[in-house]
């Protein structure tokens, strides 16, 4: 392996890691706040990418990528809140909401995916890159678009971290996640916070979708593989801390890039799952986990 290939692998892993980090953090936000797993998250990714395409692409409205991203992210925030009110809230007080929400979010995923198919058709589409051209750092050439994707993901995640840590609304969200009843007794509007958490999560999914769409081709089921990876990342990293899934995302991204090089595209998920199982046997709460909200 030459230095050149090693650098390429590392870079590919970092780009993957940044995308996984965005998706996994969105997933973990809903998981920690509501205590449920949103199987529609992958479809949120696809829907976000398609909405952005509809606004941005010259084949459609042609308003530019920035406008497309803005509409998509805001639109997905609203759609996320709607999905919460329609699919999650009716079961809010039922003791087995975890099981029921598996069915309802899977149903939501299927319905949304069919909507995408219906509206945009199964043909592959692509968003224009955020930045064109290549640049070179330390003698290796990398695409400026991929650099922008990584930088954007890191900035957004850092902002989200600060929001959860410092902003009153973010603190209230963490409080609800840790003790719903005590939060209610403090006058916090739990329902609204749940809706906001769902909306934020969907907006993060939209952003991930847009970034993926600027690197690869889009199709209606483009979110299902990233959803599985995000699930691995969340379980692998643990959700004790906001940063757990983020570190794990980069580890999984790098592992995937190395495995793809070493054992090929076909075997790399198998190796990844094997590693994950070993980690979970040794550290059931995840690699960076200590305490997990029991659901």
């Amino acid at each position, binding site marked *: 392996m030459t230095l050149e290939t090693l650098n390429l692998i590392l870079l590919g892993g970092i780009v993957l890691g940044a995308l996984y980090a965005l998706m996994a953090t969105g997933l973990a936000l809903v998981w920690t706040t509501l205590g449920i797993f949103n199987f529609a998250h992958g479809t949120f990714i696809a829907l976000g990418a398609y909405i952005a395409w509809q606004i941005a692409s010259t084949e459609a409205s042609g308003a530019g990528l920035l406008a497309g991203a803005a509409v998509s992210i805001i639109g997905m925030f609203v759609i996320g809140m709607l999905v919460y009110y329609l699919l999650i809230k*009716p*079961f*809010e*007080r*039922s003791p087995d909401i975890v099981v029921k929400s598996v069915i309802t979010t899977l149903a939501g995923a299927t319905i949304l995916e069919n909507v995408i198919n219906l509206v945009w058709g199964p043909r592959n589409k692509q968003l224009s890159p955020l930045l064109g051209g290549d640049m070179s750092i330390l003698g290796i050439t990398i695409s400026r678009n991929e650099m922008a994707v990584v930088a954007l993901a890191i900035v957004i995640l850092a902002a989200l971290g600060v929001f959860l840590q410092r902003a*009153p609304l973010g*603190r*209230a969200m*963490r*409080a609800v996640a*840790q*003790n719903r*009843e*005590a*939060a*209610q*007794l*403090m*006058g*916090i*509007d*739990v329902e609204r916070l749940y809706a906001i958490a769902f909306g934020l999560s969907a907006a993060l999914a939209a952003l991930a979708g847009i970034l993926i769409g600027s690197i690869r081709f889009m199709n209606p089921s483009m979110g299902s593989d990233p959803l599985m990876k995000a699930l691995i990342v969340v379980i692998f990293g643990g959700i*004790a801390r906001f940063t757990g899934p983020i570190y794990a995302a980069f580890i999984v991204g790098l592992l995937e890039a190395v495995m793809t090089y070493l054992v090929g595209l076909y075997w790399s998920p198998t190796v990844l799952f094997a590693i994950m199982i070993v980690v979970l046997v040794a550290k059931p709460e995840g690699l960076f986990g200590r*305490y997990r909200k029991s659901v």
Partner: protein
Amino acid sequence: MTDTLLLDVRALDGGYEPLQIFRKIDLSLAQGASVGLFGPNGHGKTTFLRTLSGIIDPWDGDIFFDGVQLNRPGARGSRRWRNFNYDAITRRRMDPKAVARAGLIHVPQGNLLFPDMTVAETLSIAPYASRGRANAAETLDKVFRLFPRVHERLGHKIRFLSGGERQMVAIGVGLMAAPKLLILDEPTLGLSPKLRGELASAIQTIRGSGVPLIVVDQDIAFLEELIDTLYLFDHGRISRRIEKADMPTHEEIMKLMFGEDHH
């Protein structure tokens, strides 16, 4: 009549579906007065208080607080089909955030608070409820004077606190919410005698600063010093209402509560 009462609970029914825990509770609190609830374990005191603060819906009856009705009037509809999700088609009969924002603040029994947040963060959330009814910085100062230990532990996570410290933070959080009426559910449960004394005197101070209380405790002597009226809670009903003037001794209460039952 209602406008002279701070809290007026009339014929309140409630429980955990489908099990009714308490029935026909009448309880009232004049402006500036405090009441105590006393009764055996498992007879529904906590359930009643959780209903008062809207955590669980009342089944029937009325709750007036500070001149407004907190629950939707009337009895809830019958829930004949056990397996039907009534939550999907019925609105909640009471809204806990509206209760807290009205100033009825409940410090629950054995409050675990937010295990992974620091004491400082936890105290910073409570003013959410008060919505500018009080000056947060001033109240925080008051909490620190009341509980110096809370001040010492500001940077610690809640789950690393001792039971007594956590109880102090819980009461501090209640104060941060600027209560017009503070509900304390067994505030001294499971604490050492020394800590009990410390907490009891802090609660005295809170009472002395003009915050009306509803206190549940198993220690009659402690209640006696705080309250104007004592309600005896027995199998989900109020079996007796005793004014401060004719407060019986502990033995007499024990006889009242258990004596007649043991023929």
